[in-house]
Structure formats: C-alpha cells, structure tokens
C-alpha cells in the first residue's frame, strides 16, 4: 500500500482556510493552530481526511477559562504568543497514528453565550468529551445530540470548572439548613 509522505499541517491548513487561521504558535514542540469557531468542523475534517495528514484519532477535547483578565483587548498585544480573543478556549488534541504526531487545534468562545459547533459527527468519541465540557465549563456545543449533564446532577446550578465558581469549603446541605445555605450562594439564585 502506498502511503503519502507527511505534509506540514500548519501550511496545509493555512493554504486551505486562509484568513480563518487566526494564530499559530509552538511551545515545547507542540503546535497549536487557532481557527475561527465557525469553521472548526471543516478544519478537523480536513485534518482527518487529507492524505499526508490523516489525524485519525481524537485524543482529547479540553476547555480552559481565561477569567478574570487574561483575555480580550486588554490582554492582546502584551505578549504575542498568548493570543486570547475571548474568555473560553476549547482545545482539540488530535493524533495521527500513521505519522505518529499530535496537533492541537483551538477555538475561542465568547463569555456571554459560549457556543462551539460539535464535532460529534466526525468522531463519536467527542460525544462524552463535549458533554463533560458543557456540564462543567458551560460551553454549549451546537448540534450535539445529547445535551444532558454528564457529571453533575441535573438540577445543579452553575458550572463548577469556571474560574469564577467558588472553590468548595461549603457546609454540607441538609434539610434543616438548606435555606440558610442557599441564601449565601449567589449562583444558586440565577
């Protein structure tokens, strides 16, 4: 079987998507390509199916929250390496078994209404990974078939992995003190 020689993913994506590639950086031999949120499905599909790239395995989808002030206009320009236009980042780690290399594709989602298109149509592995992010980080995945919470109870308020979510150290909730506890929780009222 003839196997196409590997090609550089950054050049290929830049050639194919042009202005939709927002930023490229390399840190500790790891390449990150930041693309526009709308075209993430096309970019991943391109990386998965193009001969010479064949990123066939979805290793991980993780999210990151740049709250409170490490993103946006105030933060741009400070360091060119840290390109962060919006509050939430979603990082897709894909792996090519054929060429034995990894790549990180990253998109950003705005603070008010974080929505990212789902890639569950490409890999069913994305199903739970995206549900976990939607549950714990509160980033919605547009077109995802199953929008229930994964880890937290269905009636849970807030998204625990956000940086503005309080970090534990709370009284255990019983029926006799539930009123008092809820009165201390600003998030539970929303």
């Amino acid at each position: 079987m003839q196997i196409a020689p590997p090609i550089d993913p950054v050049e290929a994506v830049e050639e194919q998507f042009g202005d939709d590639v927002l930023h490229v950086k390399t840190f500790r031999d790891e390449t990150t390509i930041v693309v526009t949120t709308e075209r993430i499905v096309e970019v991943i599909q391109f990386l998965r199916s193009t001969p010479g790239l064949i990123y066939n395995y979805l290793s991980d989808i993780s999210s990151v929250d740049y709250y409170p002030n490490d993103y946006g206009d105030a933060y741009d320009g400070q360091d060119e390496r840290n390109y962060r236009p919006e509050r939430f980042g979603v990082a897709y780690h894909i792996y090519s078994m054929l060429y034995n290399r990894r790549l990180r594709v990253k998109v950003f989602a705005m603070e008010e209404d974080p929505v990212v298109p789902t890639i569950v149509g490409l890999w069913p592995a994305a199903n739970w990974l995206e549900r976990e992010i939607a549950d714990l980080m509160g980033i919605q995945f547009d077109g995802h078939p199953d929008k229930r919470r994964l880890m937290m109870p269905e009636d849970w308020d807030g998204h625990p992995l956000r940086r503005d979510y309080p970090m534990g150290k709370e009284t255990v909730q019983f029926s006799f003190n539930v009123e008092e506890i809820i009165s201390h929780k600003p998030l539970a009222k929303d």
Partner: protein
Amino acid sequence: MAIEQVGDQAVKATWEGDLNQLKGLVTERAITGETMLLNMGPHHPSTHGVLRLLLELDGEELVTVLPDVGFLHTGIEKNIEDKTYEKGVPLTDRMDYLSPMSNNMVFCMAIEKMIGLDVPERAQTIRVVLLELSRIASHMVWLGTQALDMGAMSVFLYCFREREKILRIFEMVSGQRMMGSYFRPGGVWRDLPDGFHDAVNEFIDYFPPKVDDYEALLVKNPIWIDRTHGVGVIEPDLGLAWGVSGPSLRGSGVNWDIRKSSPYSGYETFDFDVPLGEHGDVYDRFMVRLAELRQSLSIIKQGIDRLEPTGPFRSENRKFVPPPRSALGQSMEAVIHHFKLWTQGFDAPDEEVFAAVESPRGEISCYLHGTGETRPRRVHFKTPSFMHIAAMPMIAEGHMIADLIAIIGSVDIVLGDCDR
C-alpha cells in the same frame, strides 16, 4: 516504523454512524411496554464501581445500553487549580486508584514539559520499574474481577495474593500501599530503600509460574471460552472512532502502544513486544492482557538489572525541586529554597502543554495550562475508562445481558478514573 506498527487501519478514519444513536434515549418500543427497562447499578458489584447502566431489554437481549456516570465525581481537576504543582500530585492518585503511578506519571510529565525540568536517568528507570509493577498490579485486579464476574472465584483469590506482593513493594518505596504519590516533578520522592532490589527480584522469580497457573485455569477452559469467544467485538475502525485505547484496542489488532510510538521515561531503551489480538472480542482482550503481564515482567527485569542501589533520583534544579532535608542544617540557600518551594511553589509559564502515557487501561493524557504563577489555570485528564464507558453502547448492544458483565470486565474500567 510507525506506519508498520499501525497497519492500514489507521487510514480508515471515517465514521459513518447515525447521530440519533448518540441521543442517549431508549427506543419507542420501551414506551409501549414491548421491551423492559432495567437499572443495573449503581451498586452492582460487577460494574467495578458506582456505574449505573440503564438497560433496555428485549427478552434477554440488550436493545439499548445507557451508561450513567458521575457518582464518583470529586472535582479533582478543580481542586488541582487551587494547589501548587507539586501538591497536585496526591490528587492524581485518587483518579485511577488501581494504577496511581500512571496518573502521577502523566501529571509529572506535563509539569516537567511545561517548566523544562530534567529527570535523571536513574529516576526514569525507577519510574519504569514502578510503572510496570503498577501495570501488573492493575491487571491482577482486572483478571481477578473479570473471572469473578463470570463465576471463577479461585482466580480472584490468586490474583489478589499476587497483587499484595506488589503493594508491599509500593509500601516499601513510598510508605503507602496504594496512594503513594511517589513520582514528583523532576524524579521520585525518595531514593529506593534497602531491600528494594531483593523484593523485586524475588517477585520476578515468583510471578511467572503464577501466570502459567492463570493460563492453565482459563485459557483452554471450555466454560471460559464459551462465555468470551465472539462476545463484545470491537471493530478496529469503530474502536478508533470511539476513542478506545490501550489493551482494549490492541485486542482488535491495532498496534498502538504509546510506550513504543512516542516513548517516554526511557522506554525506548527497553526491549519488549506489544501483544496483539485478532478478533477484538473479550477473549482476545483477555489474551492481550495476559501476554502483557509477561512483557511487563521482562521490562521490570531489564530495569532492575541496570538500576544502581543508590544514585541520583531527583533533579538537582533547586528552582523547582526542594532540597533534601539534610541540607537544611548546612546551607542558607537550601533553607530559602525549601521555604519558597513549600509555601509558594514554583512559577510555570502561562502556556499549555499536553502529555500522554500508556496506563494499564489505555491512553491517559493530561492537558495542563499554567497561569505564569504558582498554580495551574486548568488541568484536564482524559482518562481511558471515560472513553471506554462512553463506547459501551457500541460494544454491548445486541448482546445478551450476561455478556454485558463479560464486556464490562474486559474493557477494564475504573469509575474513579472515569468521573475524576
């Protein structure tokens, strides 16, 4: 080399499934009462933890399998954000509590990559020896519980006897049987204790006949073969699409082992084979893991032979690694470093790194994002059990309910690993 290893399965990267199957709903036949809904768990012993499976049954046949997780969600990722890097290591033990060393390893690797910290060669070898011991210990629990689920009680007792020997070795090096937190950024916590080599060598001599025993008990056992042959088949390309990894994927014949494809901690200097299955059924996964026991033992043997009894075990970079306790009485510098590292911690850049290792269950990966200060902004672990439970509907649907028990055992899930 990577191309040879993987074969042509890797090229088949497309998935042509139906998104409606991922909705997590039972079929309409359940609403009319034609099929029966049954809750399995969250306390059923053979679900290997608090896993709840909602089953839709047509007679004894599984129509839908809907896993429900989160009962063990302890917020480990959130908690690590509140700790300095080194103090995050004990939390990672609690994820996959059957092989805590792999979790320590992936977290330490991510930190070391982030700050560019060196690890002495001897420390890397110590890590490899302990990782492989941990792999055997984890496989012992897998083999024992898998056999127990399917009615072979004696294997369970034998396996836990062997595992106890390994836990003794862990206790010897770290002071703890399971949650050792022995791996630290830059190496390991302390040097190896006296008697470590003897204990490991004794285990190396003791263990191979026991593996023969397991083979004698199960490999040609007609009941075992009836229960496992052709059950729970994972097609290679479907397995890749669903994110299955580790021995569960190698049982389907996909030759992907991170220890070979992107070696870490000096695995490239060890000589070992990656056992592969053919059919991807429960039996092949069982055979792959049994063969891995022998390969792990061979790695331990090579490692212990080249390991000096004493020597460097942790990086000497005092900006990241606390000085030994004995240095505090002699050096002002050491006191400063000790105080700074244990109160404030070290700074890591405001950057992101990704590390992946081959745990006994599959690929466990860590995505670490720093803040430029002493605490991480975000730590995310992708754990093999999480992906395997997500893939459970793909593997199990269409089988009998008794086969589900065999399938759950064969993909080797740990719910602490899944829920984190």
